[in-house]
């Protein structure tokens, strides 16, 4: 898999391609964050942990129940969707109407709860997670790209397209957009706003589950494995303008490429990736608080 590139340009291109693939994962987790942010102005600090939990469910389905990966994948998405709806109904709903700061603390409580539960059930030892794609490299004019990276990219693009289509072309998607934008008016025309929030949490959890299953083969699986990914997803969401789904996509890819380059060309960069996530967040908030696509906030999802 790790074929030494012959010249610096090819090496650079290879890093960029790898960065785009990880960036796609950050992008879909960022999309999950944006979904909840748009619905209730809330940064969900438990998003990564929920994705981690979904990935562990997939792990158990594969290793204990011995189901095939292609059965487990949609099944995990469904379970995560139901789990997300349940979390909203049971834990978030009692705090509806509270100040956002209280809700942030609620998501942190959820963070602790999910992390501790996963640790209790699956332990803290790193586990390998299977990738559905072969790691065989493909040769594109001297640039070697492994099949699994392309697979991750493809899956993420499908997820993004599905979410866009859902909001653009379905009635429920329209109702969800309306509920986020004009809660009172939507209620008057018969949209069940509170259930739309639950649906939003379900979708975010389902999207997060895909992110978890896509990145776990690379990072290995343990209860803390999504925390760095969540930070990068936050960086991606902020860079894209935290309200914008397109921004999440662009931000995710940019952050992915940036981190790949930092990891390769800066000494110790591999360790400092998290710090660079912090730098991205602070820099964007200082220089351009609305992010790259902040203007697009007028058309709400």
């Amino acid at each position, binding site marked *: 898999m790790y074929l030494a590139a012959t010249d610096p340009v090819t090496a650079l291109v290879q890093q960029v391609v790898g960065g785009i693939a990880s960036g796609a994962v950050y992008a879909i987790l960022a999309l999950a964050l944006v979904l909840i942010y748009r619905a209730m102005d809330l940064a969900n600090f438990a998003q990564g942990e929920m994705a981690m939990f979904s990935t562990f469910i997939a792990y158990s389905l594969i290793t204990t129940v011995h189901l095939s990966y292609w059965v487990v994948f949609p099944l995990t998405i469904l379970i995560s969707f139901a789990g997300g709806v349940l979390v909203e109904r049971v834990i978030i709903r009692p705090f509806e109407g509270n100040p956002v700061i209280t809700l942030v*603390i609620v998501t942190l409580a*959820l963070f*602790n709860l999910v992390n501790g539960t996963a*640790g*209790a059930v699956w332990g803290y030892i790193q586990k390998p997670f299977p990738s559905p794609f072969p790691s065989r490299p493909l040769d594109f004019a001297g640039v070697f790209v492994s099949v699994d990276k392309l697979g991750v990219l493809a899956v993420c693009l499908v997820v993004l397209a599905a979410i866009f289509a859902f909001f653009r072309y379905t009635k429920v998607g329209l109702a969800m957009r309306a509920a986020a934008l004009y809660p009172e008016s939507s209620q008057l025309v018969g949209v069940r706003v509170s259930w739309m929030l639950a649906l939003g949490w379900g979708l975010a959890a389902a999207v997060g589950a895909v992110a978890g299953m896509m990145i776990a083969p690379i990072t290995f699986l343990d209860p803390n494995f999504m925390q760095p990914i969540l930070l990068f997803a936050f960086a991606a969401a902020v860079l894209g303008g935290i309200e914008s789904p397109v921004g999440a996509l662009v931000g995710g890819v940019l952050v992915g490429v940036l981190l790949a380059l930092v990891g390769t060309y800066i000494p110790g960069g591999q360790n400092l990736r998290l*710090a660079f996530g*912090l730098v991205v*967040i602070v820099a964007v*908030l200082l220089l351009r608080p609305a992010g790259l696509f902040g203007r697009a906030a007028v058309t709400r999802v």
Partner: protein
Amino acid sequence: MSRLKGLPIPVLIAAGLGAVVLFGIPLVTDTFFTFLFANVAVYVIALMGLNILTGYSGQISLGNGAFMAVGGYTTALLVHRLHVPYLATIPIAGLVTGLFGFLFGFPALRLSGIYLALATFALALSVTPVINNFDTFTEGHTGINMKPAHAPAILQLSDEQWLYFLSWGIAAVMFIISWNIVRSSTGRAFMAIRDSETAATASGVSLSYYKTLAFAISALFSGVAGALLAIVAAYVNPDNFSLQLSLNLLVGLVVGGLGFRFGPVIGGLVVVFLPYYSEKIATIQFSSFSLPAKPDIFNGILLLLILFFAPSGVMGLIMRGFALYNGRRTAVRSRAAPAEPVLEEK
């Protein structure tokens, strides 16, 4: 004396009892509990710092564990590399961390609410890998073993008792400092910002000045706490200052009561003893199915219950009890305001 006369009798009694208990603990408990209670003092100091930032100024911070790391490593490096006497490192650690907090608060003053939470979250996550990365300087994963602190011979105390009295002595000093900050015009400016940034600005409160100041003061407290944590354990390790530490601090403060003077005391007890006892329980039984209990689960559940049933924490409940007790004769004073959530978004 005249100031003391202004205080209600129950407060004086509680203070007296508190003092007796504090002095009694190391005399009646064993070495291990003395050590644990010394840790409580450390977290009380850290929580007083967080209380100034989050409780009084309304700036949510998930990164105070990072400030503690700066304090802890300042002390450890000074003692380990330069052989500075450990007592002298405490004020230095406080000042260094205060400066760090000021510098971090500088960009952070433009952020509020959720963005500040994001930035401080990123800060908390970055600490451990950054310390690990510069391992030639910080010893990385292995951590730094410091020479253990010994009690001065004239005091005839065991080392644990000495650390206990040292920590609580410093906690008392920091408590008085924080009390004075809160009741000064600075404290009123903090609370004005918390309650409404617009109204505070309209009343001539400089948002940037006071937010940065709150960060610096909060970091200074955290730095002192981090320094003491290093001294009490005679050891620092990057994993001591993980994201979980910052989250534990927030849990402790919310459970104790945001924006209450004695909230951090209760919070300190929670931060130290909740993990201790939840690990003692060891397993949760669901009929025949058992799970090894992890402190994080209890942390999460306790936090949710407190937020739902008592949003102003244990101190809020106590104050409400007081108000009920006094309420028969006098109108309930707004000071306690127990029914409302303490943190108001603008």
